């Protein structure tokens, strides 16, 4: 019997709330709306759910969802750490649970009022003196006021620019392409609001070298999916979206957003770990994808990821985006929903949703003949990735 994970499980249902700056309701309610929509989409009765997976910073517990769904036989649940870096990992965990027979029907979800309740970009982390690892670790940064994700990413980006000659305009091309896709996606916050490279250059500094338009938005909203065996998915309502490969990644000198102490800080070696594993599991390579969802909380790391996955040689992703390969009509249109720069910041789970729609053929900016879609999760932190494919 083939013990590989590849092709064993599939995403059978997809649900989401609207994405907004203020949902006006509780996170639990958002989670329930998305979960019930995903189950309805799959044509699966809520009581059948026997597994859950989500990721950290999400504060909706799976037991409460289970209680409200009337689940009596839940055998698998996990919550994966490191926020957006885990965006792809619940699908991986669910696929492993399904492939090993521990669970048959797993709901993965992410529901947060990130914009109206918290704001990760605020520079305020409820920093405390208890010497837990993370409080001690933030002690190297917070006293200097070096305390925002944009600033931490900026530190890597500055060195990347210095080493490879990349410019702010190269980062801008990522934002312009994302906003172009968002402009034709009615679900996107920036629907009908495209930008030019000049707009990008003229937008104010958030943290040099990052302009405002290098940074994703902050959003409220939820996304959920139902994962079951590929075999069973064939008989359900929707076209199955097969989980071809999945991996998490931690590499040398890993920290949360501050891996500044590595020999070289111009790459994302944890994403290199993910890339290698995804290609090994699936037997695919960079040429196999018709579209991809590349995590875009900040533009510079999109270039780095294109390099880690071999779409461009190290330091040359700037040429790749200058040639427009990543944009509408390019050889590998990325983030066709508008990304987190253009659609919403649902911590990457909205990107997984877009990959599902691309495989189903139901995306608003549908790419032709989609066979395989690469999806990546948050960068600068322990991360994850997926390859989703047609059956």
């Amino acid at each position: 019997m083939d013990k590989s994970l590849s092709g064993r499980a599939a995403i059978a249902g997809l649900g989401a709330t609207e994405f907004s700056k203020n949902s006006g309701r509780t996170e639990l309610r958002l989670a329930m709306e998305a979960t019930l929509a995903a189950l309805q989409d799959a044509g699966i009765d809520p009581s059948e759910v026997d597994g859950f997976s989500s990721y950290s910073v999400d504060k909706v517990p799976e037991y409460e969802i289970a209680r409200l769904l009337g689940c009596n036989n839940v055998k698998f649940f996990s919550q994966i750490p490191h926020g957006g870096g885990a965006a792809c990992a619940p699908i991986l965990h669910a696929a492993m649970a399904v492939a090993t027979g521990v669970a048959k029907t797993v709901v993965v979800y992410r529901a947060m009022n990130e914009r109206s309740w918290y704001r990760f970009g605020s520079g305020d982390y409820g920093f405390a003196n208890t010497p837990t690892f993370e409080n001690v670790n933030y002690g190297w940064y917070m006293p200097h006021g070096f305390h925002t994700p944009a600033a931490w990413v900026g530190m890597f980006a500055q060195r990347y620019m210095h080493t490879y000659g990349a410019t702010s305009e190269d980062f801008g091309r990522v934002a312009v392409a994302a906003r172009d896709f968002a402009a034709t996606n009615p679900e996107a916050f920036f629907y009908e609001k495209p930008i030019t490279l000049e707009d990008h250059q003229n937008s104010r500094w958030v943290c040099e070298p990052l302009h405002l338009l290098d940074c994703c938005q902050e959003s409220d909203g939820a996304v959920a999916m139902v994962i079951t065996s590929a075999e069973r998915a064939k008989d359900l309502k929707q076209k199955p979206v097969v989980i071809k490969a999945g991996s998490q990644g931690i590499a040398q000198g890993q920290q949360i957003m501050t891996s500044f102490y590595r020999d070289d800080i111009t790459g994302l070696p944890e994403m290199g770990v993910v890339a290698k594993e995804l290609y090994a599991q699936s037997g695919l390579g960079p040429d196999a994808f018709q579209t991809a969802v590349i995590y875009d909380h900040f533009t510079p790391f999109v270039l780095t990821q294109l390099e880690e996955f071999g779409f461009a040689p190290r330091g040359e992703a700037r040429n790749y985006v200058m040639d427009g390969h990543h944009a509408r009509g390019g050889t590998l249109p990325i983030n066709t929903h508008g990304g987190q720069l253009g659609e919403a910041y649902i911590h990457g789970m909205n990107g997984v949703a877009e990959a599902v729609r691309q495989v189903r053929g139901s995306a608003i900016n549908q790419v032709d003949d989609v066979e395989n879609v690469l999806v990546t999760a948050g960068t600068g932190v322990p991360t994850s990735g997926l390859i989703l494919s047609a059956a």
Partner: protein
Amino acid sequence: MASEWLSELKAMVGREYGRVYAWDKVNAPMVRQWCEVMGIDNPLYTDEEYAKQTEFDGIVAPPAMLQAWCLEGLHQNNYPQGSTDENPYGALKLIEEQGYPAVVAVNSELSFDRYITMGEKLYYVTKLTEVGDEKTTALGTGFFVTLVMTFFSEKTSEATGDDEKVGELLFRVFKFKPHQQPEKNSAPAEVPVIKRPKPGISDDTRFFWEGCEAKELRIQHCKTCDELQHPPAPVCMHCQSFELDYQVVSGSGELYSFVVMHYPEVPPFDYPNPIGLIQLDEGVRVPAGLVGVDNKNDLKIGQRVQVEFQTFDEELTLPMFRIIDSNAQARS
């Protein structure tokens, strides 16, 4: 109809208002007094002899004085003859009539085209550039209104051509309905002093912070394999030995990377806030605030830096780094 006044409000965007003149020509006594009040001791503004030897060939006005030249003075709305009596804040009045009584200034951004010299006569014109959609912030619900004042220097009688633009002031206010607030006690609330966040300190890192108190930069050292590591940890990341002590390092190094933080402005930090990633000569990297950065545009990877300990709030000593040359060549 709610939408009617809103359309009226939006229609005001783009409106330009007439000139407001300065009472006086730009003059040295006013500059000297302004510098005295602001605590500025740059001789370029006050010392004619010194200023003569500079590229400016005489004293110039501090750029930040720009707005001061055209202020009305002691008596409200008492502007020099010829100034407009149109009120560029008409939009605010309109918003206020709809039940948004409060106002707070949120941005005041000055930009300068050139230095202004003694004897120039200034005026400004105002344009209402933006009225945002209704927004809810921590303060309340209302509208962001943006005005841009453009400052000109009047051409002299012998010169030809147009008056010359010398600078601009973007001024944004939030005109709002405050959130309902519970009854407050009549005693005035004490204003809390916002301090720098203190680091979480553990048994693994205490020596570093004690070193800062002693003005020593202490880097963890492995007694087994002789490697240095930072940030400190309970074991050596190279050989997993628990046998660790520290070395006091030189505090010399170079700028390996850097950022300049602008937004959000979180107290008590000053902005822009330059932060460096320092590659110490001993080989490890330390992130830290940069001091003495006169012009953030001069920061370059590869510049030499030296540690300098600074104490904040009389209780927190941090290693900061000063750029000690302008050598822009990275060695790495």
